[in-house]
C-alpha cells in the first residue's frame, strides 16, 4: 500500500478550505463594485487605490504603531521575566512556566473583558484611587489608545516570554562561564554573549506578538470603544457592515503580504526551533 495516499483527504480539504478561500479573496480584491455594492467580475485596481487615501493610510499607521508599541512593551517586560524563569531551579521553573500558560487557556474575550471591569469609570482602579484620596473624579481610562495598548500587552505577553525562555533555558552555560573567566563584566557578558544567543527566541516572540496585535479587532473594539480603528476593525467593518467585500479583500491581501514580508525577513535570523514548538 502506498502510504502517501493517506494525505489525500487532507489535501482535498486544504485545497477547498485553505487555498480556495485565499484565492477568492485575491480575486475579489481586484473586482469592481456595482451600484448596489454587488461584486462584478471586472478587473480594477481601485480597491487598492482606495487604501492609499489618507484616512486609510492613517488606520494602517495606527495599527502598525500600536502593534510595534505592544511588541516593544512585551519585550521590555518579558525579557527580564524570561531570564528570571530560566535561572530558577527546575521545579520552580515548571510552575512559573505553567503560570504563564494558564491565562492563555482562559477565554481570550474574557481576559480582555476583565480589563473593561478594571478600567471603567466605576471600575476597581478608579474606585481604589478615589478611596485612597489621590483623585476626586474618576479618570477616563477605558476607551483610549493606552487602554488598547494595555490590553494587547496583557494578552500577548506570554507569547514573548515563552519563546525567549525556551531559548535561554537551552543556552550553553559554558559560553557564559568562558566570557566571565576571560574577565568580561556582567553587562558585557549579557550584551555580547547571552543576548545575541537569545535572538532567535526574541524574534519568534516578536512575530507572535506583532502578528495578532496588527490583525486584532476585538481588543480595539472592547477597550478602544470604536475610537481606535485598526486594520482588523476596518476589515470587519467592510465585510459585515459596509458590505464592500472588494475593499475588505484588498485590505486582507495587504495584511497577508505584510505578514509574508515580515516572515521572510525574520526567517533568515531565526534558527531551528526558535520556540514555536511551545505552541
Amino acid at each position, binding site marked *: 500500500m502506498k*502510504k*502517501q495516499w*493517506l*494525505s489525500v*483527504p*487532507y*489535501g482535498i*480539504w*486544504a485545497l477547498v*478550505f*485553505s*487555498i*480556495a*478561500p*485565499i484565492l*477568492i*479573496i485575491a480575486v475579489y480584491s481586484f473586482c469592481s463594485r456595482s451600484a448596489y455594492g454587488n461584486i462584478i467580475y471586472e478587473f480594477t485596481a481601485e480597491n487598492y487605490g482606495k487604501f492609499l487615501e489618507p484616512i486609510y493610510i492613517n488606520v494602517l499607521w495606527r495599527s502598525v504603531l500600536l502593534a510595534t508599541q505592544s511588541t516593544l512593551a512585551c519585550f521590555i517586560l518579558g525579557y*527580564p*521575566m524570561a531570564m*528570571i524563569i530560566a535561572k530558577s531551579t527546575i521545579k520552580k521553573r515548571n510552575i*512559573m512556566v*505553567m*503560570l*504563564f500558560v*494558564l*491565562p492563555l*487557556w*482562559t*477565554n*481570550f*474575550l*474574557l*481576559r480582555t*473583558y*476583565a*480589563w*473593561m*471591569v*478594571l478600567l*471603567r469609570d*466605576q*471600575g*476597581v482602579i*478608579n*474606585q481604589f484611587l478615589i478611596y485612597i484620596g489621590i483623585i476626586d473624579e474618576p479618570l477616563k481610562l477605558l476607551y483610549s489608545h493606552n487602554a488598547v495598548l494595555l490590553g494587547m500587552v*496583557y494578552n500577548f*505577553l506570554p507569547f514573548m516570554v515563552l519563546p525567549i525562555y525556551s531559548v535561554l533555558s537551552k543556552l550553553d552555560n559554558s559560553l557564559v562561564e568562558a566570557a566571565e573567566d576571560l574577565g568580561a563584566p556582567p553587562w558585557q557578558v549579557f550584551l555580547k554573549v547571552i543576548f545575541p544567543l537569545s535572538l532567535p527566541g526574541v524574534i519568534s516572540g516578536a512575530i507572535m506578538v506583532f*502578528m*495578532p496585535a496588527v*490583525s*486584532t*479587532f*476585538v481588543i480595539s473594539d472592547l477597550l478602544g470603544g470604536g475610537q481606535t480603528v485598526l486594520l*482588523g476593525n476596518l*476589515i470587519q467593518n467592510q*465585510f459585515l457592515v459596509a458590505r464592500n467585500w472588494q475593499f475588505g479583500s484588498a485590505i*486582507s491581501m495587504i*495584511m*497577508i503580504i505584510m*505578514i509574508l514580508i515580515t516572515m521572510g525577513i525574520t526567517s533568515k535570523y531565526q534558527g531551528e526551533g526558535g520556540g514555536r514548538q511551545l505552541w
Partner: protein
Amino acid sequence: MVKKLCKAAYAGIIYVFLYLPILVLIVYSFNDSKYRGNWSGFTLRWYQELMRDRTIISALYNTFTIAILASLLATVIGTAAAIGIHHMKPRAKAVFMNITYLPVMNPDIVIGISLLALFVWLKFKLGYITLLLAHVTFNIPYVILAVLPKIYQLNPHLEEAALDLGATPLQAFFKVILPEIMAGVVTGFLLAFTLSLDDFMVSFFTTGSGVNTLSIKIYSMTKLGVSPKINALSTILFIGVLSLLIILQQRASNIKE
C-alpha cells in the same frame, strides 16, 4: 541578596499583572451589587441567572459539541495526513508542509473572512455546519504538527515485523503503529480541542444568525455593557480550565515516568 529580592519582586509584579484581572472577575461574580464597583454582599444570584439564560446554555452546547466533533475529525484527517506526508518524496513533502503552515501563519481574521467568502460563494447556509467546517480547517495543521515528530521517531522495522508475522496492514496500524504515536495524537487532539473552545475570530465570521458559540455570546454581551453574569461564566470556565490543566499535567508526568 538584594538582587534576589529584586528578581522575586519583579516576577511577583508580572504575575499580579497576569492574574489580577482574572481574580477580580471571580470576586465580582459573587458580588450582590450590579452596577457599582463596590462590594455589597455575597451572592450566588448571578450563577442562578446564568443557568436560567437559555442562550448561554445553547452557546455552551454549541461550543462543546463543535470543539469535540471538529477536533475528532481533525485528529483522524490530520493523523492520516501526517503518516502520508512522512512517506512522501521531499518535494511533495515541502509543498504539503507549506500548505500546513498556511493557516498557522495566516491571521485569524483573514481565515475568518476568506472562509465567509467561500461559504457565501458556495451558497452554503451559514450556521452550525459552516462553523464545524471552519474549525476542522484551522485544527488539522496543529494535529499534523503534533503527530509528525512522533512518526519520525518511529522505528520503521516495527511495521515490517508486524506484517512479516502475518498482520494485515490495518492490524499493523492499529496494533503497532497507533500505540507508538498515540502521545502525539492525543496532544494534537487536545491542542485542537482547546483552540476550538477558545476561538472567536473565525467563528465570528463563519456563523449564521441564531447559532452562537460561547465566545460570540460573550462578545455580544460585552457590547451591552458589563454584566455580572459574564463574571460568573468566567469563573466557571476558569476553574474548568484549571482542572483540565491539572489533569493534563498529571498525564504528562505519568508519561515521563
